[in-house]
């Protein structure tokens, strides 16, 4: 009997030790993720930091004997919600970084101070609210044969009304999102002929827009095309890359080389003579 009790105590101590390790690994990481979310300039980086926080919280849930909630956390938050955030960020655009202009003067510092006040109040109010060691959920879970079964008994028993209301909420949320995202067409959709017509009524060049530069050393989309006078055609680079400032102009030596060849000071490779070009043409035809 005493052997069994000692083994149980040992097991409890082991699980407590594991819980301590998990907490001290995951808690700093989750706080780091939250801080990274607040200080990241770009919204995409914030989203990735939030994902870090969510995953660490899921691990903490599992450590707190809530494996079902841990899995739901991974599936719902990191799986669905963060993907939704990333999709919306993709639509809104990568250049939607925050402005650092304060609309209300001193609002930022006031906000930080007041939030820290709320945090201190929270910690003071509930920091020591749990007296004594944690009871643990072993007994409750074992009564129904597992955490999922025990939660199911609660959800379809005591909380069945809330559960049904939740289903109504989910359906209305889906409908609301569909209505909000739906765009009514007020004018008939223009045909290809009308689009072409309107394009030719516009001022400016009628042809296709300039493509990004394709040179011997650079053929990526971030290399702007060169105009006849050697200046850079900024319009040839896609808008998002312009917004990021990720332009890679063709390098100066290459430009100088081209200019020198053009002015007759240097020769690139073997000169093309009319005879040789005629020969090659003839071979091509044969």
């Amino acid at each position, binding site marked *: 009997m005493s052997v069994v009790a000692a083994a149980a105590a040992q097991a409890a101590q082991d699980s407590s030790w594991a819980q301590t390790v998990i907490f001290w690994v995951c808690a700093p990481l989750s706080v780091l993720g939250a801080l990274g979310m607040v200080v990241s300039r770009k919204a995409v980086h914030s989203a990735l930091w939030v994902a870090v926080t969510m995953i660490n919280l899921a691990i903490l849930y599992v450590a707190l004997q809530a494996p079902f909630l841990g899995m739901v956390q991974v599936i719902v938050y990191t799986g669905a919600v963060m993907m939704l955030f990333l999709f919306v960020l993709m639509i809104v655009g990568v250049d939607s970084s925050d402005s650092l202009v304060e609309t209300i003067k001193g609002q930022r510092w006031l906000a930080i101070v007041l*939030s820290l006040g709320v945090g201190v109040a929270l910690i003071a109010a509930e920091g020591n609210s749990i007296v004594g060691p944690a009871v643990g959920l072993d007994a409750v879970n074992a009564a129904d044969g597992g955490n999922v079964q025990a939660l199911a008994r609660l959800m379809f028993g005591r909380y069945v009304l809330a559960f049904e209301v939740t289903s109504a909420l989910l359906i209305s949320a889906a409908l609301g999102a569909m209505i909000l995202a739906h765009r009514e067409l007020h004018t008939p959709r223009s045909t290809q002929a009308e689009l072409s017509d309107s394009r030719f009524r516009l001022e400016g060049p009628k042809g296709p827009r300039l493509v990004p530069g394709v040179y011997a050393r650079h053929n990526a989309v971030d290399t702007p095309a060169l105009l006849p006078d050697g200046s850079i055609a900024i319009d040839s680079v896609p808008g998002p890359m312009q917004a990021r400032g990720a332009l890679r102009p063709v390098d100066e030596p290459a430009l100088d080389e081209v200019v020198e060849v053009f002015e007759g000071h240097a020769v690139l490779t073997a000169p093309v003579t009319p005879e040789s070009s005629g020969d090659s043409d003839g071979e091509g035809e044969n």
Partner: protein
Amino acid sequence: MDPNAYVLLSAILFTIGSVGVLVRRNAIVMFMCVEVMLNAANLAFVSFAHANGNLDGQAIAFFVMVVAASEVVVGLAIIMTIFRTRRSASVDEENLLKY
């Protein structure tokens, strides 16, 4: 392991989330901060459930997750609609009712 540590972590996360909501101007990032605040509350629920040996906290946390998911769906749809008309996701641009 002191069960109060989890509650402290939840308070810290909640504070960081509220700082983010008040400081950031991008509507999407503010929304993420709200998510972190909801998660902090969930952590408090789960840790209280563990400390008291009572599963009700986990059930409530589950319902919070469901509500948060539907809230994200509608909220992001609203942000998309505003972006479509104003071409901006910044909350400072949404000032039509101000003047």
